[in-house]
């Protein structure tokens, strides 16, 4: 398990380095930079590395919309014992549908989505889409495939639930008996 995590971490870091030396003029940024100072990158070509989460929305115009998160949960999710590092930091991305045809499912519960490096134009308050902000992806590299996460049932919780249910049952029985005798 530790080895897998280490491999993913290295892949993500290499991805970032690769992205830096990739397409000309593309600046490598994080989603937090785009969210906090989006105007600075408006209309620029940027590269972002992160996990695809949520859904893949394949629209009739041939585009696919999804969410890309650059946060620690892509490497160590909470289900795997990863640390709490605050809220997710995600942006909307649009890409040609064919880019997404072979992708693993997007990240959600017990599922880490594919980690990708995407390069495209940062559409900040795009006039054509009535002020929406998103990354219009032109090129795309898969950094790490999606993966399933194992979840082990917490038997202590089940045990406590069972004990409290038994106590509740006894109290309820006592209540019904007493009410009926009254």
């Amino acid at each position: 398990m530790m080895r897998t995590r280490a491999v993913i971490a290295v892949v993500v870091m290499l991805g970032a380095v690769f992205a830096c030396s990739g397409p000309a003029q593309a600046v490598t940024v994080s989603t937090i930079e785009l969210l906090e100072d989006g105007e600075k990158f408006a209309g620029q070509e940027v590269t972002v590395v992160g996990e695809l989460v949520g859904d893949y929305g394949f629209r009739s115009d041939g585009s696919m919309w999804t969410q890309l998160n650059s946060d620690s949960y892509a490497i160590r999710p909470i289900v795997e014992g990863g640390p709490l590092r605050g809220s997710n930091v995600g942006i909307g991305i649009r890409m040609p549908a064919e880019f997404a045809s072979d992708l693993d499912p997007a990240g959600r519960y017990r599922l880490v989505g594919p980690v990708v490096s995407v390069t495209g134009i940062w559409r900040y308050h795009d006039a054509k889409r009535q002020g929406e902000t998103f990354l219009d992806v032109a090129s795309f590299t898969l950094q790490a495939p999606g993966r399933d996460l194992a979840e082990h049932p917490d038997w202590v919780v089940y045990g406590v639930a069972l004990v409290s249910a038994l106590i509740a049952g006894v109290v309820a029985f006592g209540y019904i008996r007493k009410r009926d005798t009254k």
Partner: protein
Amino acid sequence: MLIRPAADDLRTIGSALGRILLVVAAASLIPIGWAVAGQEWNPLGSFLLMLSVFVLVGVTLLRVSLAPRSKISTDQRHLDWGHGMVVVALTWLIVPLIGSIPFVLSGHYASIVDAYFDAMSGLTTTGLALVQDLDHLASSLNFWRHLLHFLGGQGIIIAALLLFGGRGMMTLYRGEGRDDQLLPSVRSTARAIWAIAMIHLAVGVVALGAVAWIVLGFSWQRSLFHGLMIFFAAFDTGGFAPQSTSLAYYHSAIFESVTAVLMVAGALSFAFHFRLWAGVNRAWKPAFARFRARVAALFSRTDGEEALSGDDWRPGDRRADGSFSLFENLETRSILATFLATMMFTMVGLAVLGIYTSVAGLSRQGFFQILSAHTGTGFATVPSAELARWTGLAFGGMAIAMALGGMASSTAGGVKALRVGLTVRAITDEVRNDLLPEGALVDTGYYQFGRHRLTPEVARSAMVVSLLFVALFLLGTGVAISYGVPLEQALFESVSAGASVGLSVGVTSPAMPVVLKLTYIFQMYLGRLEFVAVFVLIGFVYSMVRGR
């Protein structure tokens, strides 16, 4: 002299509280079913624990209420006004406490306070959230967050009324900040409210799900999931969303439009809904009758129009029951006026700031955010960091819209349109009275589902609650400022918490100080119950300690 509550008072309260907790326990079977269907075993364990705690506390209270020394039997015992207020105030403290158990056990919260914060935010239909890594949260837990909106918005108490009814139960209904009795009995009123909610649920989920499936291209299962979650949050003016980017996740004007309709529906009072439905029913009744008659005529070869001879109703008639006088209501006029004014402020402010370069962008983003603020929903299509840059007039418009809120007896929070209308009316009447010659009579009548007179008592009540809301907003602002939050952001977040809105400029985060979290919890609680029930609870506890 304060009178210490008698043991029978405590048993009466315990009995009602116990029943309500059993209603919530029954509701918690839904996420249990969801977790089983989704094979989410750890959340299932936490839901089972929550269920057993709800049942345990509920039946223990019922058991205690049957103590042998009680002079009054359960059947004879009924709630008076004070009991009802205490029950409501305690319900809204205990339900989020037990309801936060699955959140605590999920590992997505840094502390019990954070989990309680989210449960209170869900139940009070606020929508501020401290959950971490929401995008990987189990779907059953996500469902529970949104179901809390539905339970809080439609009213746990109303569900209890529907099941138990009984003498004195109307006081519980009023304790939740509702005051419109749609039908003669409490139970029929509760049934009408739930019927309205269920019809909206069916239509809303289908509409949102269809847009998600057809337009957004989601799988049908996920479309249904998103439709259900967004419906709960929109119709109950909650503001939680299944993804961390809120409504911006969908990147769709159509999806936002359907959501906006549901947000507006949620901000309307149930009395408004009820009369609207009655009016629509009457308007369509002749058309249905005509259609039926024509179909019958096709087969029986009789004149179909004759079947309508007995119905002299014409569309556009003003009905005696006011079904076509909704736009004459003081509340309707008040909310339309404040919505237009705050929208204008916000739009002009955004134009001055130059945040949006296109009219379409300004209109869509500005309109959605202001609608979300005024209805008390709290959905956002822009990130909180960007919302923090909406300064000047845009900030003023948003803050005022959040503070004013929706209609009375709706799921929205804030001062409420009726109180705003009554306060403005009282002030204008006073000014008119001063300007007119001595002895001149000023018409103090106003229309709200019928003619009423604006008495000094009604005006005072509206003004007192409005002032209490201002004090509540200032409290949260002061605490946030003491932690170094800039004034504008502190005020925005405080109004958002106190008026049960849920929009955030980034102050609300897991990293904020515990005292500020507790302050916002208190604001959400007090704002949702509109003070009275909480004050009665404080008085009750005080009289238990100091009374004789």
